[in-house]
């Protein structure tokens, strides 16, 4: 069972509320969900839509084709008509003879109850058409409009009105509530991972599509007693966050491409001062302003080479919303362990999209701050002490009695004082690079491999393409021996697995959401291995598994 619902209309028409109610309800009915948002860089008008895919099986990405369209305005019928599946249905306010359109007089029904709640009529109608009972939807309405009695009342009335206005067409049935699952969007997931890791200070400047992280952590600031600060610009944000860590707080910022560009110098500062920070880059297409509300994976090489000269840096890309929680948590521990900046490369696809995932399991989550034990500091404190593994004792001001803590952006000696001689420079460069060596040895995640042991083809992806690639692999499995290599850590690049796979003789098919095959170039620069095929997409829209399947057949196995 695999059912694809699209809610379409103008910006400002309340699509998000409809999505929220549907999502909650399906989830309570025990369905797996995967939703994506396609919206324009504007506040009202234009054409936006959200896709909710539901299934009794775990879902890993969006699919093409629409089973049920909630057309909140007339235009939407025209726009999406060609995508309708054969038995698909459109709920619309257009009176029409065509039998794939279910007419509903939503405005008429809402007029006397509450015209602003007109969308709930669509929700009610949708449930009836699908054959689902409304109890869970009623619950969802109550939770969504919490605190506002009269509004809840109106929405419940309209839910019922919608339900009663149409006929049942499908037979979806509830599957029963499953308690080990949750539904989360990627931006909240990054925020949640950070909060679980003990985030105390988040400073950022709003920028689509990263603002969801800011909003989520801000919504928790009071109850957790942490500080979320809106900076005057991204340069302030990154420097605030450096000050946060220096002051002893787990600190993070989030942005998108243009903001990341403004943070470049500050990320280098984190490198040379060895200040652990976490930066989320929720990618959107560029260059410059580009397509502000769309998705892409065009910042990879930029992130890996983010500032002048060289310094320890880690870049990792969550594979989906679930992974985003764990990877963000991990990012904080690794930043602290190696005293370096960690960039999390997310994107609009997972950032704005939601997915049913297994409930986050915290049993292996340990906050590891790696701060110096004051008892171990003897004599004058050396912030940049030479050590075997390059990691120096890190303290924050006020932590050590009778000792001050100095941090410096110039090349410096062990005490953080400015130096210019070649000898100290060489020692400090060596010290910093030892940290990368250790990181590679101890903490780098090799990509996950899924598929047969002797594949003819291997789909290679990084970050958010993992889900669509999983689906594509399954579709291809009937016809080909095809595996899937899914990278999490992209810098430093884990090379063992890809080298082994390349050596096996399987054809490598890189699938990336950018125009320049950036991951292919990165892998090649580190290993010499080159893709045999590149399936690329750079139009701001995510891949679906079906699309990859099709393009594989068109471009790879012709």
């Amino acid at each position: 069972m695999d059912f694809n619902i699209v809610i379409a209309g103008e910006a400002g028409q309340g699509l998000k509320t409809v999505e929220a109610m549907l999502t909650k309800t399906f989830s309570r009915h025990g369905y797996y969900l995967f939703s994506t948002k396609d919206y324009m860089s504007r506040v009202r008008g234009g054409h936006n839509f959200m896709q909710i895919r539901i299934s009794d099986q775990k879902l890993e990405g969006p699919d093409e084709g629409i089973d049920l369209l909630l057309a909140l305005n007339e235009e939407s019928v025209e726009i999406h008509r060609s995508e309708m599946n054969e038995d698909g249905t459109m709920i619309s306010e257009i009176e029409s003879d065509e039998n794939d359109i279910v007419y509903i007089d939503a405005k008429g029904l809402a007029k006397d109850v509450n015209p602003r709640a007109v969308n709930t009529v669509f929700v009610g109608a949708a449930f009836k058409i699908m054959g689902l009972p409304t109890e869970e939807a009623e619950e969802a309405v109550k939770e969504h409009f919490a605190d506002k009695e009269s509004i809840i009342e109106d929405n419940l009335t309209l839910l019922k009105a919608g339900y009663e206005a149409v006929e049942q067409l499908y037979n979806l049935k509830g599957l029963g509530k499953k308690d080990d699952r949750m539904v989360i969007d990627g931006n909240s997931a990054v925020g949640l991972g950070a909060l679980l890791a003990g985030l105390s200070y988040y400073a950022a400047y709003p920028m689509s599509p990263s603002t969801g992280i800011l909003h989520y952590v801000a919504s928790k600031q009071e109850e957790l007693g942490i500080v979320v600060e809106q900076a005057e610009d991204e340069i302030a944000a990154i420097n605030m966050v450096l000050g946060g860590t220096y002051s002893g707080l787990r600190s993070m910022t989030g942005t998108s491409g243009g903001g990341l560009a403004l943070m470049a110098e500050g990320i280098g500062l984190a490198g040379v001062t060895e200040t652990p920070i976490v930066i989320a880059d929720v990618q959107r297409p560029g260059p410059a302003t580009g397509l502000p509300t769309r998705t892409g994976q065009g910042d990879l090489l930029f992130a890996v080479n983010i500032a002048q000269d060289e310094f320890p840096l880690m870049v990792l890309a969550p594979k989906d919303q679930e992974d985003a929680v764990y990877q963000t948590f991990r990012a904080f521990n690794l930043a602290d362990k190696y005293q370096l900046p960690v960039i999390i490369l997310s994107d609009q696809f997972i950032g704005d999209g939601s997915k049913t995932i297994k409930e986050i399991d915290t049993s292996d989550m340990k906050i590891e701050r790696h701060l110096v034990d004051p008892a171990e500091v003897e004599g004058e404190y050396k912030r940049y002490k030479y050590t075997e593994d390059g990691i120096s004792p890190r303290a924050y001001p006020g932590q050590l009695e009778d000792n001050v803590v100095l941090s410096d952006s110039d090349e410096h000696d062990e005490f953080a004082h400015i130096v210019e001689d070649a000898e100290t420079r060489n020692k400090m460069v060596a010290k910093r690079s030892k940290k990368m060596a250790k990181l590679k040895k101890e903490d780098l995640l090799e990509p996950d491999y899924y598929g047969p042991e002797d594949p003819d083809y291997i789909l290679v992806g990084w970050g958010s393409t993992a889900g669509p690639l999983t689906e594509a692999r399954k579709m291809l499995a009937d016809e080909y021996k095809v595996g899937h290599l899914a990278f999490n850590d992209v810098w430093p690049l884990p090379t063992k697995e890809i080298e082994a796979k390349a050596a096996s003789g399987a054809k490598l098919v890189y699938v990336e959401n950018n125009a320049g095959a950036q991951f292919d170039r990165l892998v090649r620069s580190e290993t010499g291995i080159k893709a045999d095929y590149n399936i690329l997409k750079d139009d701001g829209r995510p891949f679906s598994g079906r699309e990859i399947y099709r393009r594989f057949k068109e471009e790879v196995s012709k």
Partner: protein
Amino acid sequence: MVDKNIYQADRETAWCPGCGNFPLRTALSEALSEMDLKPEEVTMFTGIGQAAKMPHYIKVNGFNGLHGRSIPPAVAMRVANPKMTVIVESGDGCTYGEGGNHILHNIRRNLDIIHLVHDNQIYGLTKGQASPTSMAELITPVQTHGVNAEPFNPVRFAVGMKASFVARSTVGDREHLKEMVKEAKKHKGYALIDIFQPCVSFNKINTYQWYNKRVYKLEDHDPTDHAAAMKVADKFGDEIPIGVIYREEKPTFRERIPYLKDKALVDRDVKVEDMEYLIKEFK
């Protein structure tokens, strides 16, 4: 009283002989000592420039960051540790030029910090280009016919913005400077001191003599009277007033975050278990 010598690191400085940075450092050390602050109770945030090298030459906690970015890293210390004395310090170019947007918005935040600007009206470290405060007639290798813009008057700017404490001082009067630092420390909220600091290497206009001849101590001035303060702030010519020019008590950054109370965020005890409930909210 903490021994003032404790602050004077014995490191060789990179400053030119005769530079105004030396008396500034002395005044600061003395003020810190007289205020009885131990080195570990003070944190200094600086940018890049000759002035910004201060944390290498005085013994307190120090974060010597990027050119123009002396203020942003200081914000967190204010929430992390309310007991820490926070000094932000840098040159006029770093603070008012590259870092202009940060002073603009941190005046609005009203962080409880002491903000010391070494105003030598020149870019020292990069060898003598105009800074925002340079006189219009200054000739430099870049400003070959004088500066293409009106000089920035930091005091008028800050008073115009109603910064909660605005003072001007000069290294030519060490006692006065010390006094200003102590006043700034006493003041609850953001406290800017723009300090005349002659650059003997590059600024041949604004010399010790130039300042000494012009500065006079404010008397009979009510710093809580904004209109009067604006008038005083505007004076920058043959006579230049020094002292506390404007003062207004208002909510500080911390106070606007009511739930912080007097907690030091750095002491926050975080346990993953305590946050399990966040996960449940997504069910």
